[in-house]
């Protein structure tokens, strides 16, 4: 129907592809052709219409919330993240005291959350944590607020991690390696309005 001739030698497929490439690199033979521009505008209109439709649908779904969110959260298996068993010593021979690796990762995140402007991502415990006294290296990925002094934040985080680990575990921590993966910016949404009513 729309022959290539009508599209200045281009196929509809090429134009579709061009749209998805955000029209880069610019192709003068497309940009300069009124027929191509009409076709592209049509596709753009289709996309806009679809986005409007999608926005409406997603908003409607967002309003339902909660019962289905809770249902999902109650079905996920926390055991899947328990990880290895980390022993805690006790004089009684029949005692088997354990803190799970998953719980320890949780305190590493919490330790990070207690330091402002740094966010802890993934954490790894390198070493045989199931053997008492075995040397362990803690590796923590983090993201830092743009503009902060990274070494000082990393030091604070390291201190906080050491403190948490010695409080909750008997791990022989040899080192806490912190890798700053990324910087983040202050979240735009109003931080005041929600908290002001407290």
């Amino acid at each position: 129907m729309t022959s290539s001739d009508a599209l200045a030698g281009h196929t509809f497929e090429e134009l579709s592809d061009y749209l998805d490439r955000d029209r880069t690199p610019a192709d003068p033979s497309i940009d300069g052709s009124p027929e191509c521009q009409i076709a592209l505008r049509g596709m753009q209109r289709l996309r806009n219409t679809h986005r409007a439709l999608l926005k409406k649908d997603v908003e409607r779904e967002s309003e339902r919330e909660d019962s289905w969110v809770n249902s999902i959260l109650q079905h996920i298996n926390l055991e899947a993240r328990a990880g290895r068993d980390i022993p805690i010593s006790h004089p009684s021979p029949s005692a088997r005291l354990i803190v799970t690796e998953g719980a320890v990762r949780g305190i590493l995140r919490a330790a990070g959350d207690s330091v402002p402007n740094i966010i802890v991502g993934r954490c790894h415990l390198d070493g045989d944590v199931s053997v008492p006294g075995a040397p362990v290296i803690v590796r923590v990925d983090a993201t830092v607020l743009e503009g902060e002094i990274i070494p000082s934040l990393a030091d604070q985080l390291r201190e906080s991690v050491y403190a948490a680990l010695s409080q909750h575990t008997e791990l022989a921590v040899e080192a806490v390696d912190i890798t700053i993966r990324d910087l983040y910016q202050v979240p735009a949404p109003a931080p005041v309005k929600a908290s002001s009513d407290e």
Partner: protein
Amino acid sequence: MPTTRAPLASPLESFSDQVLADRAADGDVRAFEVLVRRYGPLMRVYASRVLGSNDEMDDVVQESFITAWQQLPTLDNGAAVKSWLMRIVSRKSVDRIRARRPHVNIDLTDAPTPERHSPDRLAEAESQTEALTRALADIPEDQRRCWMLRELAECSYGEIAEELELPVSTVRGLLARARKTLLQEMEEWR
């Protein structure tokens, strides 16, 4: 000033996909919950469009998130968690359709008759979005899946190709055809 914000007033909600996916992979349920709230509604829309009904939507989305929780540790790039989740829900939705196909054949006469052919409905088509909804329901399945992975899931051509096990060139063609048809249908209602 920013440091005076109330600590733990769920700052998680402002975290990037990458951070949330990483933390969820490590077992942070709160981070996972933020992802569920962030992308669940879009996944529900996706599932309902593929399934053509809301009946099974909850199940499909729940299954998708349970799978996601299990498989998150294998996701290399947490920043891509959105399209990763959308691909999961796409797969689960299609599985659902395939599972019920035998019934569909039997019930074919009960299938919703194409409303757009009814003159009353014709007159009632108030908006382009409605026209688009109907047009989308009518295009061939492979085109629709391509289109949805592209426009809802925001997958790259490469991701779509991988998901549908098709060459990228085929994906490009299917997308163009979907757009062309949808555009024509939409224009008819203008």
